[in-house]
């Protein structure tokens, strides 16, 4: 008998016989790989980082001088912390809305019955899956002061060559590089646009709504949970930006893991995690760096929590996502 046939059998069959419960043993059994892995490879390291944050360890000496809360006090009092944080927030302002809105708009376009839209979808999405090392090399090449295409393009208009990768310009070069991948959300957006209730759209049309209004009142509420989730993910990812900043700097990626090269990351690209990285590997301040990480982690958790609290209410759910056994499709 096929599975489908079994499913369609009337449930009056009842639960005869011993019911195999959804026992805890089974649950823990299934999640055990993740549980063990996470304990070992995530929770232990985090705990270790927490412990180190109370010391002044330099990363290799035997001695780990106790520092108490000194590092934490310094996290909040150091100007580097705040300037790197504000730069990160600036980056978020440039990148996150553009990515979310951009993906959505593109998805809306691609949702229309346009010729070749699958090809377009592919072409727009591909930059989002290009590995970071490759993307950095590509854009470094483009923004190279003497030989790059960007300056060659500007030269067509008689504009002087701009040192894109240096100083304040580097921030914008980085933004451009990150926005190149703004199609990252179109796959999900397209998928979720497919789920918008056609009948409701139809009804809106009948009520005289134009494209904007139907989007706002029908589509948007329906896709808002996913949009919210996407925004949170992109926000968190952008908050942690540091590898692209490192790779785009004049240092090559090869020495990116070597401390001193942090000095080559232009100040305007010194984001929070870049600063953290510098603390660890340029200044050998493992304790302080760990404190920065712990604070940042808590900050992100709080931020995520607040976002869900605040916006969660205005998001429209057909089904309570935390329920696990209810049927998802309800009409």
């Amino acid at each position, binding site marked *: 008998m096929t*599975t489908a046939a*079994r499913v369609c059998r009337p449930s009056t069959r009842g639960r005869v016989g011993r019911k195999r419960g959804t026992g*805890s043993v089974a649950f823990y059994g299934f999640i055990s790989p*993740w549980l063990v*892995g996470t304990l070992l490879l995530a929770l232990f390291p985090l705990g270790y980082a927490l412990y180190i944050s109370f010391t002044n360890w330099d990363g290799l000496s035997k001695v780990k001088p106790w520092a108490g809360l000194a590092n934490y006090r310094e996290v909040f009092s150091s100007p580097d912390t705040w300037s790197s944080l504000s730069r990160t927030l600036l980056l978020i302002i440039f990148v996150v809305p553009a990515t979310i809105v951009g993906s959505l708009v593109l998805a809306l376009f691609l949702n229309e019955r346009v010729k070749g839209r699958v090809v377009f979808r592919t072409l727009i999405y591909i*930059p989002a899956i290009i590995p970071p090392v*490759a993307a950095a090399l590509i854009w470094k090449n483009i923004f190279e002061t003497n030989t790059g295409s960007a300056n060659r393009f500007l030269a067509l208009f008689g504009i002087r060559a701009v040192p894109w990768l240096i100083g304040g310009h580097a921030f914008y070069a980085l933004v451009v590089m990150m926005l190149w991948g703004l199609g990252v959300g179109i796959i999900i957006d397209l998928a979720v646009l497919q789920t918008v209730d056609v009948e409701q759209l139809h009804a809106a049309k009948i009520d005289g709504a134009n494209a904007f209004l139907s989007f706002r009142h029908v589509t948007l509420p329906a896709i808002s949970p996913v949009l919210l989730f996407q925004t949170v993910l992109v926000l968190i990812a952008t908050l942690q930006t540091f590898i692209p900043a490192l790779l785009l700097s004049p240092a090559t990626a090869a020495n990116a893991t070597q401390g001193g090269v942090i000095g080559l990351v232009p100040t305007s690209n010194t984001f929070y995690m870049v600063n953290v990285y510098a603390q660890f590997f340029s200044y050998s301040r493992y304790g302080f760096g760990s404190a920065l990480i712990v604070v940042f982690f808590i900050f992100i958790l709080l931020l995520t929590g607040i976002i869900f609290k605040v916006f969660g209410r205005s998001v429209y759910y057909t089904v309570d996502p935390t329920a*696990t056994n209810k049927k998802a499709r309800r009409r």
Partner: protein
Amino acid sequence: MTTPGVLPPPADTATPVAQQRGGRPHVRRLRQRPRALFIVLLVISIAMMLPLLILLITSVTPGAQLDADRWVPAVFRWSNYRDALTGIPFWHYARDSLFLSVVYAGLTTLSSALVGYGFARLRGPGKNLLFGVLIAMMIVPQIVTLIPTYLLFSRVHLVGTYWPWFIWGSAGAPYAIFLYRQFFSSFPRELEEAAEIDGAGRLRTFLTIFLPLSRPLLVTAFVLAFNATWGDYIAPTLFLNQNNTTLAAGLASGYFSSQNIPEPTVLAAGTFLYIIPVVVLFLLAQRHYVRGFINSGLK
């Protein structure tokens, strides 16, 4: 109100309702919309592909002509590709990258499915808390756990081997686990009950019923994990030696001529070769990849 005599086409969510109706007042504007949209999408697609085109052009530029004021070099130096393959142990790195990426992706896909199923269909004390931990793990940056993880692995002499990836793979990836969890949540209880009645254990139910159902999501998770490993270069730099590291780490060191001058054109060729597998994989898996997201119960 539909035009009499014309049946409305079957429900087509891809086309806006208004267009389906073919209502008279908007006919001309609507028919123009696809064309305008086509042009817009064309322009955007070209813009997106432009950097890759530039990469390609750079990759065939002779090194000396890099700063010539030309968009396209006078001569195409295809031998840059040969140099890219010989300048660093390209095939060696590629093979290692492929091995790691495939193994990690395979392990993680299955493991994430397992764990996602657990979270979706099973109950246990502390489950919500653990799920919260899962979400929290998505927030932690890789570099944070990397150094202490290195300490751990080197104590058991596993550095310089591929074991870290095997273990990471077996633990599953939080994002994939989340997707699976969403996906598996959307099935009716009857599916399991039917299997129970036939005497199947939990694991068998999972393997024979749920896992096959999640095929598109398997593809999605695999592709995501593959890309993550193919593109990762900090972990290989830390954990692997020169003779078994990945292409990401190898490329990152750059290419140098016999005179030890950096060769950005050869590097461009190497980069182009490096991204081909990722793009090809996506193109091949596109359909399933997309469906994977759709099916993960985006509600």
